[in-house]
């Protein structure tokens, strides 16, 4: 992995905001807003996998769509391969689209049922005018199918003739067609059975190694995210609450929400489970229409302090190693660490 720190990141997202206006009635009268993404910042380095985790509705998919500029932004900056893409017009985005592709969660609805596999995989080549002659077009499709472990003789079949895992391979082949540098995977294995999940995870990791791909990997299953990611960002209600290297995050989670999330996952080991303390948190994720004041997690936080409902903590970097067992890279948004970060409570 080429994680040279001072190198320009492949993708830089700064204070990204996506707010949806809620309207009512025929006149579309605005009645409020959902701050689906509310000040998200992170970066992806060349060749790494950055995992984005969080519970349903916290804004993971919206973040992904915004990065691809498939979702209007309310604010913030997105830099991809060194260019500010925040203000680009659709025709200016077109050549960049080739460099950033998406793999979706649902292998059943994301493929057009009336198209043959060959045409599904080849469509991006046609759209971008890269299919020069028939023979090389076919050869490229065969090559892509082979890369994802599908037999090229299957190319005349339709999606319904494939299993969930195979359809996910088709989606991956299609994403690879334009030789992107970044692939955003939104819950790529969530709909698959355990034994098939493992096949697709292995494939994604092999392809990354062979092609030097960078992944933004979205999932709610922490063990899957741990397996594939180099660094992980944890989201809660539109904000990132913690970013850390995989091992640091799992060995010593800093944010109370991250801690709760980790202790909520049962481990596949009955002997360990019998002794593991469970710190369950109370309540459910509040509606993003009416997020709590201050730190969004404060109504559920076991360590809540008076400052928490008043001031929203920002995502501070662990400079000069003030968080034990964490590198300088780690970031956490929680007032518990105000002193370590040298800021006032």
């Amino acid at each position, binding site marked *: 992995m080429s994680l040279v720190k001072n190198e320009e990141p492949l993708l830089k997202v700064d204070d990204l905001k996506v707010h949806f206006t809620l309207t009512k009635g025929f006149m579309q009268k605005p009645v409020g807003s959902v701050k689906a993404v509310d000040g998200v910042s992170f970066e992806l380095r060349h060749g790494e996998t950055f995992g984005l985790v969080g*519970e349903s509705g916290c804004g993971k998919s919206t973040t992904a769509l915004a990065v691809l500029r498939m979702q209007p932004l309310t604010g913030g900056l997105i830099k991809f391969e060194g260019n500010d893409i925040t203000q680009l017009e659709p025709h200016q985005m077109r050549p960049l689209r080739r460099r950033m592709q998406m793999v979706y969660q649902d292998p059943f609805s994301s493929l057009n049922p009336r198209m043959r596999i060959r045409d599904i995989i080849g469509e991006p080549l046609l759209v971008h005018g890269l299919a020069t002659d028939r023979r090389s077009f076919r050869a490229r499709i065969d090559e892509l199918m082979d890369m994802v472990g599908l037999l090229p003789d299957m190319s005349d079949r339709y999606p319904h003739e494939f299993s969930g895992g195979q359809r996910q391979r088709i989606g991956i082949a299609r994403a690879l067609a334009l030789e992107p540098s970044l692939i955003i995977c939104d819950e790529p294995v969530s709909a698959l059975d355990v*034994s098939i999940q*493992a096949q697709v995870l292995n494939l994604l990791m092999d392809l990354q190694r062979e092609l030097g791909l960078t992944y933004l990997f979205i999932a709610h299953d922490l063990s*899957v995210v741990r397996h594939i990611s180099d660094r992980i960002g944890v989201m809660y209600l539109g904000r990132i609450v913690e970013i850390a290297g995989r*091992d640091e995050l799992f060995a010593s989670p800093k944010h109370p929400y991250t801690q709760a999330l980790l202790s909520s996952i049962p481990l*596949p080991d*009955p002997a360990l489970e019998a002794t593991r303390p*469970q710190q369950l948190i109370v309540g459910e994720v509040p509606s993003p229409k009416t997020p709590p004041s201050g730190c969004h997690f404060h109504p559920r936080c076991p360590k809540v302090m008076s400052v928490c409902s008043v001031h929203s903590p920002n995502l501070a970097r662990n400079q000069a190693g003030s968080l034990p067992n964490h590198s300088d890279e780690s970031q956490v948004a929680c007032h518990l660490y105000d002193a370590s970060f040298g800021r006032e409570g």
Partner: protein
Amino acid sequence: MSSDTLLDIEHLSVSFRTDRGKVRAVSDLSLSLKRGETLAIVGESGSGKSVTALSILRLLGDNGVIDHGRVVFEGRNLLSLSTDEIRRIRGDRIAMIFQEPMSSLNPVLTIGKQVAEPICLHRDKNWDEAFEIAVELLTKVAIPDAKERLDDYPHHFSGGMRQRVMIAMALACEPRLIIADEPTTALDVTVQAQILALLNELTEQSQTALILITHDLGVVARYADRVAVMYGGRIVETADAKELYANPQHPYTVGLMASIPGIEGDAGARLITIDGQPPDLADLPSGCAFATRCQHAHDACRTSIPALDPVEQNPSHRSACFGYPL
């Protein structure tokens, strides 16, 4: 059948009439459950977990047929009861919790009515008494201000709260068995943990037996006493939970255990996978259903079906495999 046996399923086979002909969904399945025990049924989608659960309560629907077998619960074969008799058992002695609470709650009835109804029906209480018990139950499953929420409708509740209501309804008549089919799959991780902990605590307190259907091997490890692993409509391995994780025998179980990325251990290493795909039940191979994916398959595996035999003379650990050199 020993005296502390609550449920005994013997040689159950279930089919569905489909436009592709008759499809066998569950074959020759036997299992038994003691009073107060938690049994987890695991397996890939389509392996027959839900059909097994639905057969116990005879909820298979019009095209489902029980071809063979007995389901003996508290000494009575549920499969030979009249429709009225089985209806009296449902919701009373045996309760069921489904994956999607929204589809099993009635959207046009208040929460209070729905929780109180089985109490009226099975426990001979009037509505006032039943509402009082409903408040107690809802409080028990941690619905805040339960009394004020009796007149709410299901859509006023979040997913987690609806699943709590389902648990309250399941507990209403103090059943001896609760069948929970993927009860938390649709919920967030932190809420999932709350719901399962609650279900576990309440069944333990009241010594209610639980059949927990799940595909999450972590959930199994945390809550199950015993485990049955299903593949292609059959139980391929069953054992006490600790024994199964420590000493899995069937090649499918071994593969399943190896293919889950844990949150401990070596991240980023290649996962061991089971090649190929789950079988098509309409077109099962003639021998062991796992033979097409099994790296140990030999000639016998392709012609006859292995019986669920004890492992090393341990009657509580059984595996359906002709064996292979380790």
